[in-house]
């Protein structure tokens, strides 16, 4: 028995900030002190507070240490582990109160969260199947195989109200029903772990932190729809997730939880991993299926839908990682438990990757119906540097923005659609007053132009032309007519593209046009970028606050500033590359951007 457990985050974020070295150092230090039999070091998945990594938590005290460095380890061991004195300077400041430390669940970041899909992330060692079982793992599969018929399983999922977390929000139970109803000698279950949305890392975190939850759910789905083979399609750029998933599959096979005759109930199921090359379009279901089959990942027309004709021409159930991560909990706690969370038509929770101009960047899971305000200010800790909130983008390159005056919107599928955005897979990018909305639209469009597979003209050529128009606007060469042209082009691309990529690519443009049209107008009429982002439209100027200290001139990388000591300086606009260095350096705030 171990008297203490030290949980260290081994998610991608903390891994890149050095958590593996910290684990080695901890083990070394514990050994040196003869404590290796008393204290266990556990590498877990993501805790969520990625901004504060590397993160560790020491039980039984529940002390949450953030931004731990290698050099802190001897102190943590000799003070906390040996002498029982918590190292206060390393505690996450939110957990420190006058009365001592408070539980992590009481902090603002976690208080409003509800962890269903992420329940085991940051709690268990994902590479140890016994720990997963210790937290109730594989009970749901056992229950399904011994107590329920396939139709009963489908009915439970239907009743729960679960909808697909991959973006579309299609009712999961219904999809299972369609696949179950399809007649065939062979069917497949597939998991979409492509996660191509820039800035999103929800699915990666689930697979890194709790891979068995997805494996168990896929087996349950296989039983429900009548499939004996599963595939997980995951991008090769997620090496840690791929490795942990493979370890988990091997362990499940060894325990007989995958393979033939599971729990001696005559049900066979196995899973294989298929690596994707990381193309956004391969997340689209028909492209994904084509890619698993070994062909170039291009979409094909639907119908037929995968539930009828999918992998290798056989009926195939395709769900997203997070969708699967909810399944075992619905089976164990009942559909009503799940349906009690969320809003009328969006049940349960949703995981978001919080990014952009927000203090607590990281991974959060909230009940559907939580307001954007709560996510940004309560959980996210607000906007850094006292800046003003301008808009949030959900749904990545397929979604749209939510402007500041809609901050009290309750986040669910239908509300987001109604304002011209969408849930998407869960990227949530926060923007402050210094963000140019035309520039943001351009950023997402650059992405879709790059990622269009090129199969159909409206998407291949249309998005390129749209991007050129956007560039014209940000360069200061646009006209009001161009704005109208852009709008018309958006509608053409939406209505005539073959797959979801093209159909949704204009959304970021349309939604910024809807809420921030005045910014577009400022670019083309006043030739100004109100946020001061678009380089061609800003000018750096030195005002009469200048005392002639020469600091700016010495720091300008292109020698664009001239002037005598103790005399006012000037900027040569033809040489200036608008890097902003002079403005940052000037101690007298004499340099302005307009």
């Amino acid at each position, binding site marked *: *028995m*171990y*008297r*203490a*457990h030290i*949980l260290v985050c081994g998610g991608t974020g903390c891994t890149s900030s050095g958590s593996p070295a910290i684990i080695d150092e901890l083990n070394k230090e514990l050994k040196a002190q003869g404590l290796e039999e*008393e204290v266990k070091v556990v590498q877990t998945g993501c805790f969520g507070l990625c901004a504060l990594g590397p993160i560790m938590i020491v*039980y*039984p*005290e*529940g002390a949450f240490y953030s931004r731990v460095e290698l050099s802190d380890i001897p102190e943590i061991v000799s003070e906390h582990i*040996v*002498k*029982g*004195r918590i190292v206060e300077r390393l505690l996450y400041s939110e957990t420190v109160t006058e009365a001592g430390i408070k*539980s*992590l*669940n009481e902090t603002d970041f976690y208080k409003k969260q509800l962890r269903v899909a992420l329940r085991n992330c940051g*709690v*268990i060692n994902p590479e140890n199947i*016994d*720990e997963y*079982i*210790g*937290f*109730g*793992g*594989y*009970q749901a599969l*056992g229950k399904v195989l*011994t107590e329920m018929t396939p139709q009963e399983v489908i009915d439970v999922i239907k009743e729960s109200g679960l909808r697909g977390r991959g973006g579309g929000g299609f009712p999961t139970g219904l999809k299972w029903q369609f696949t179950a109803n399809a007649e065939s000698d062979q069917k497949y279950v597939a998991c979409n772990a492509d996660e191509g949305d820039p800035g999103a890392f929800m699915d990666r975190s689930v697979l890194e932190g709790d891979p068995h939850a997805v494996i168990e759910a896929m087996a349950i789905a296989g039983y429900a729809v009548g499939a004996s083979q599963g595939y997980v399609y995951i991008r090769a750029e997620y090496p840690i997730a791929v490795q942990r998933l493979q370890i988990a599959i091997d362990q499940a096979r060894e*325990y*007989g*939880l995958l393979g033939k005759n599971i*729990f*001696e109930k005559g049900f066979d199921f196995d899973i294989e991993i298929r690596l994707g090359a990381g193309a956004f379009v391969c997340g689209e279901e028909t492209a994904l299926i084509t890619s698993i089959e070994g062909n170039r990942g291009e979409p094909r027309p639907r119908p037929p839908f995968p539930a009828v004709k999918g992998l290798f021409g056989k009926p195939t159930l395709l769900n997203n990682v997070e969708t699967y991560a909810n399944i075992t909990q619905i089976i164990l706690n009942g559909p009503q438990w799940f349906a009690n969370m969320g809003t009328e038509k969006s049940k349960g929770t949703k995981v978001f990757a919080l990014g952009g101009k927000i203090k607590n960047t990281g991974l959060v899971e909230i009940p559907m119906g939580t307001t954007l305000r709560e996510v940004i200010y309560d959980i996210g800790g607000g906007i850094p540097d006292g800046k003003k909130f301008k808009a949030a983008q959900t749904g990545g390159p397929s979604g749209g923005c939510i402007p500041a005056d809609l901050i009290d919107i309750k986040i669910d599928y239908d509300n987001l659609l109604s304002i011209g955005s969408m849930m998407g897979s869960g990227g949530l990018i926060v923007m402050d007053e210094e963000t140019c909305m035309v520039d943001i639209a351009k950023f997402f469009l650059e992405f879709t132009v790059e990622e269009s597979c090129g199969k159909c003209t409206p998407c291949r050529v249309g998005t390129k032309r749209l991007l050129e128009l956007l560039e014209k606007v940000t360069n200061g060469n646009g006209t009001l007519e161009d704005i109208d042209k852009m709008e018309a082009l958006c509608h053409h691309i939406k209505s005539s593209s073959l797959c979801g990529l093209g159909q949704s690519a204009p959304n970021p443009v349309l939604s910024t046009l809807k809420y921030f049209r005045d910014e577009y107008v400022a670019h083309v009429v006043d030739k100004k970028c109100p946020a001061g982002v678009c380089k061609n439209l800003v000018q750096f100027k030195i005002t009469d606050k200048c005392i002639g200290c020469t600091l700016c001139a010495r720091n300008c990388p292109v020698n664009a500033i001239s002037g005598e000591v103790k005399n006012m300086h000037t900027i040569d606009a033809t040489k200036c590359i608008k890097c902003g260095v002079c403005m940052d350096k000037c101690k007298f705030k004499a340099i302005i951007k307009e």
Partner: protein
Amino acid sequence: MKSLAELAAIRDKMKAQVNIREENTENAIRVVVGMATCGIAAGARPVLNAFVEETAKRNLDNVMVTQTGCIGVCRLEPIVEITLPGEEKVTYVKMTPEKVAKVVADHIVNKKVVTEYTIGAAE
């Protein structure tokens, strides 16, 4: 693995090991062992580990065994404080691993303080 019973056996075995990570601080019985230099010198570590072993052996998953710094009466170390939910804390002094079994059985399981080991008896 062939049956649900085997699965349940692994779960129960693991549960005892991982429930240290559950935060049930409010209703938990707290055992706090003084582990400053004086406590360690007097043999607090074996006492701490004995509590961990003994409570695990009896599957007492509502007991939280933790440590603290110096409790302040160095000559009486190892010192252990036990708090049942809603009750005053009881301070045991000059603890040894041998005494631990009795304290767990009498105080934690049967709610009867082992008066002869407490600070009151020693003073």
